[in-house]
């Protein structure tokens, strides 16, 4: 496996996936490259005890649907995140649960390293998390998914479009709507970092 000038690796994800269509065992390379990222995707959203099943489900589905992977895409991560998003959605609905409860569980740890400033920042973050989680919970599912893929999973607009199977313009609309609604939700709760002017 070698690094290419465009940041991708040789052979590319697409090349590996195409090859796995005739040599299934090669699919293990896809897992090795992306398992940690997919694990992180779920671990940021659900309790850790549920993550292994969901990761396994995602890769099993990816394997079963690899014939549909667009070989023009060099990277598989948006495709895998798209499958993971569907798996997560199904998982949460199957259990009749709201994601907010899990988002609260997934809140940042209140311990921090790196000095007093970092500790203060972590405490502030922990204090304001319930408001953020509540605001996220009020978003439509499709809007929340797009927003978290952007903010937490570092996907570009085009990659979010690929992952969620909508046009880039729709991603823009969803993110715009989500941000406006999130901003309105946060405005109802004072930010602990802001000075109290009252």
């Amino acid at each position, binding site marked *: 496996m070698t690094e290419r000038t465009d940041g991708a690796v040789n052979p590319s994800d697409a090349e590996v996936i195409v090859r796995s269509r005739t040599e299934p065992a090669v699919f293990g390379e896809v897992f090795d490259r992306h398992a940690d990222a997919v694990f992180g995707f779920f671990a940021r959203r659900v309790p850790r005890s549920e993550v292994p099943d969901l990761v396994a489900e995602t890769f099993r589905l990816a394997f079963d*649907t690899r014939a549909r992977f667009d070989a023009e895409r060099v990277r598989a991560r948006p495709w895998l995140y798209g499958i993971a998003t569907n798996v997560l959605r199904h998982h949460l609905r199957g259990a009749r649960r709201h994601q907010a409860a899990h988002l609260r569980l997934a809140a940042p740890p209140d311990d921090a390293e790196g000095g007093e400033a970092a500790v203060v920042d972590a405490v502030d973050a922990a204090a304001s998390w319930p408001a*953020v989680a509540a605001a996220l919970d009020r978003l*439509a599912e499709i809007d929340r998914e797009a927003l978290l893929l952007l903010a937490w999973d570092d996907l570009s607009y085009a990659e979010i479009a690929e992952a969620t199977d909508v046009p880039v313009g729709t991603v823009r609309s969803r993110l715009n709507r989500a941000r406006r609604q999130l901003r309105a939700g946060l405005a109802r709760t004072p930010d602990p970092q802001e000075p109290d002017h009252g």
Partner: protein
Amino acid sequence: MDELAVLTRHRPDPAPPTAAERDAIRARVMGHVSGADPAGAPVAPDRLLVDLGAPPRPTRRRLARALVAAAAAAIVVVAVVMARSGGEPDGTPVTTPEREELPAVPYPAPPFTVEVAVAGESTGGSAPRRVEGRITLHRLDDETVIADHTACEGCDATSLMLNLGDRPRDGTVAEVRAAVEALFDSDHPLSRFEVIIGGLMDPASSPVVRSELLRALRSTEGLEVTEGVTTALGDVGTRYALAEAMFGEYSIVVDPTDGYVYEVASTSEPQTGPEAPDEISSPAGWFAPDGRLVTVSTIGRPVPADAVPAEMADLATSVRETSAARPGGCSSGSGNDRSGAGQVPPVPPHLAYAYCPRP
């Protein structure tokens, strides 16, 4: 600190999987890959596989659709008899909600053709702009829609039939009702609206699904209902409009007898500031965000088509064979990227057709 920065600051940073966790997951995946995993076959329910674009099963699906249509037609006849007699055929009052309204599927089996009139008017940008045009959508099969954009270059109405999302498409009344309610994960009425519109415009939605979506539509808070509205294409239906301070106004015109959506319209208020998008996408094309934008898509009834134009059939075949990327104008993936990247070479340049398979 803006809301995105707040959210990023709260990004959880979970520990990566341990070597043991990783190995265990890998073993399960590779067990499935090698066929050694006994639980590997039913990796997901059919609904999830549909979301992921499972290969079509044309024979079974068409047979099922024909049966559903036949059953629906029979049920509609029963419903008419009940309505005239004021209750069940034996005269007893109607009490079961699933028999109050169970519309037939208004879409024929593919291939079929749908005419769409689009209009967009914006006060944004350097000058007010109005776009009007017609698009012909040819649905070749369960996976393929080809849009003839020659009468409205830059328009993109394929989303009217392709953006399937995660919705129930069939099931018992109880199952569908639960699934529809589960989709409404937000209290925001517009999110309900979005789910409902998508479901009603999905040709694969069964009569039960359509019935439940109509029921959900009518129970949406804050709706303004106007009966007997005539669309730009001459169809008559009921308009359901919803105004929301933050996001603007949305409305749809629906045939009350079967839930067919004749018109989708929206009015969005100007968006400015650093969070505003560069452009706003609509079926009538792209518009500047800094103005009031009104868009209306008027959808005609589908017409069965025994054969599609040869040029389009050839195009679909050639694209399938090359497995090339979707061309610009499609409503799937990043196919709407107007940069030109991913354009399909075989598309005849003199045809502004877009080939849009479900990925």
